[in-house]
């Protein structure tokens, strides 16, 4: 579990070819649904502090890989290691508490709660999540103190994403793009080390898209977060990711930096379809 005010991690230099300090390692991951093999021995790793792209044709198994890593599905085979520890098949909340969180392909806001509540929910291990503490007269003052701190941080986060004017709005009333922002804000409040983003930009207006990418880079710079990004927009991938993994039919077809990928015959054939 991460400390509430974790010191910013030192910047890790990431080179495009050699991954020195992998934060997430996926080894021979496999997932079958009945007869369909969705993920077929995918192996790759993600360097600490990097923004890594995960691309591939539709049905390549990207979302399924995400689901297996984050505990939504139990993998049929293979191993997932995070921060040096085996996390294969652990439940989502355990992973989140260890600093590995995700956003959803379709934003899932908690619509009957306010934006602020959505964000205040996220921090892990809040004292007030214990019934005893929140009820017992003496102990409750502790809860109240912690709550004030969480609230203040929540406001800051909302300001960072420029949705603080919506703080008391029900999350269900936000527009599509605002929901994506909220989703990012919420995930950040968990103090993650690594965020998996499943098509965060799909359907996002280009202007907003730029803003979101800017935020992602800012978070990497300032807090040393690691990102794994699924995205179909090649402009985004090529211009932002220092490392790119290409999946095809459930396994990794190629990886490397933008140049390596765009010059890879197989990738061109399987995914990029001729020109880019």
């Amino acid at each position: 579990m991460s400390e509430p005010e974790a010191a910013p991690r030192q910047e890790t230099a990431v080179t495009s070819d050699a991954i020195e300090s992998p934060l997430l390692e996926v080894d021979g991951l496999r997932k079958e649904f009945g007869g369909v093999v969705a993920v077929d021995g995918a192996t790759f790793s993600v360097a600490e502090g990097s923004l890594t792209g995960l691309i591939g044709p539709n049905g390549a198994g990207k979302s399924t890989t995400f689901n297996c890593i984050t505990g939504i599905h139990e993998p049929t085979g293979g191993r997932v290691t995070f921060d040096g520890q085996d996390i294969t098949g652990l439940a989502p909340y355990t992973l989140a508490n260890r600093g590995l969180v995700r956003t959803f392909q379709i934003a899932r806001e908690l619509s009957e709660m306010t934006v602020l509540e959505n964000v205040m929910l996220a921090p892990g291990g809040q004292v007030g999540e214990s019934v005893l503490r929140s009820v017992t007269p003496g102990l409750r003052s502790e809860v109240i103190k912690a709550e004030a701190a969480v609230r203040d941080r929540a406001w800051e986060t909302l300001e960072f994403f420029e949705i603080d004017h919506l703080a008391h709005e029900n999350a269900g009333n936000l527009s599509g793009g605002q929901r994506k922002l909220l989703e990012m804000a919420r995930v950040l409040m968990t103090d993650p080390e690594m965020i998996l983003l499943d098509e965060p930009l799909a359907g996002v207006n280009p202007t907003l898209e730029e803003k979101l990418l800017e935020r992602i880079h800012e978070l990497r710079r300032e807090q040393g977060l690691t990102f794994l990004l699924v995205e179909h927009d090649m402009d985004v991938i090529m211009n932002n990711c220092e490392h790119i993994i290409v999946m095809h039919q459930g396994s990794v077809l190629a990886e490397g930096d933008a140049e390596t990928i765009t010059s890879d015959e197989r990738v061109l054939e399987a995914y990029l379809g001729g020109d880019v």
Partner: protein
Amino acid sequence: MSQRATASETVTLPDPAERLLAIRNLDAGYGDLQVLSDVHMDVADGEYVVIVGPNGAGKSTVMKSVFGLTTYMGGEVIFDETDISQRNPDEIIYEGISYVPQTGNVFGSLSVRENLEMGAYILDEVPEDRIEDVYDRFPILRERSEQSAGTLSGGQQQMLAMGRALMLDPDLLLLDEPSAGLAPDLVEDMFDRIDRINDDGTAILMVEQNAKEALRRCDRGYVLVQGQNRYEDDGTVLLNDEQVRQDFLGG
């Protein structure tokens, strides 16, 4: 015509006689919430029209309103000279409009083939040849024809949805972000297919976030902001308009 603002002086509106779809002063929303106010749009026979705009602008709402899926609050939707603004969706389909929604556009628990059959629900018989046509267009669907649609990948579902809408050979096809979630080669492919469908004489009204590509290919485009018309013009004109580029196309 009462356009609030236009990007250029040369607006080429279709001749009233050719207008297949005409949306006039439309107000619509959900329950008590009004989303669209005073929206105008036209699609001529065989025309290819694109709507772009920021998230939450009401683009999908326009589409749904044409199909009678929103709360009607005023104005008119005229298709083929009949007012369909307050009709039920299951009647509108008989007029010759098909619609591919942005989300939830396949029947998850039905098989791929059954989804296509449902696309031809209003016909008396299942048109086997059309199903074959769709399979030819999207071969992966033939491969998965017995799999339940809910377990297809995002992109595969998008293809199925499109295939379903094509089962009736409509006069007007409403497409809500057909390229969202598609791999780049498929995006190209999808746009090509849409072109082809349009070439075959089907008019198209499409919402796209992939605005540049869409505007390049279409006949005309609308920019919708906060539930109101902002700009309208030929696709290429909009594409090259500095203001539009700045505000909506991301530089």
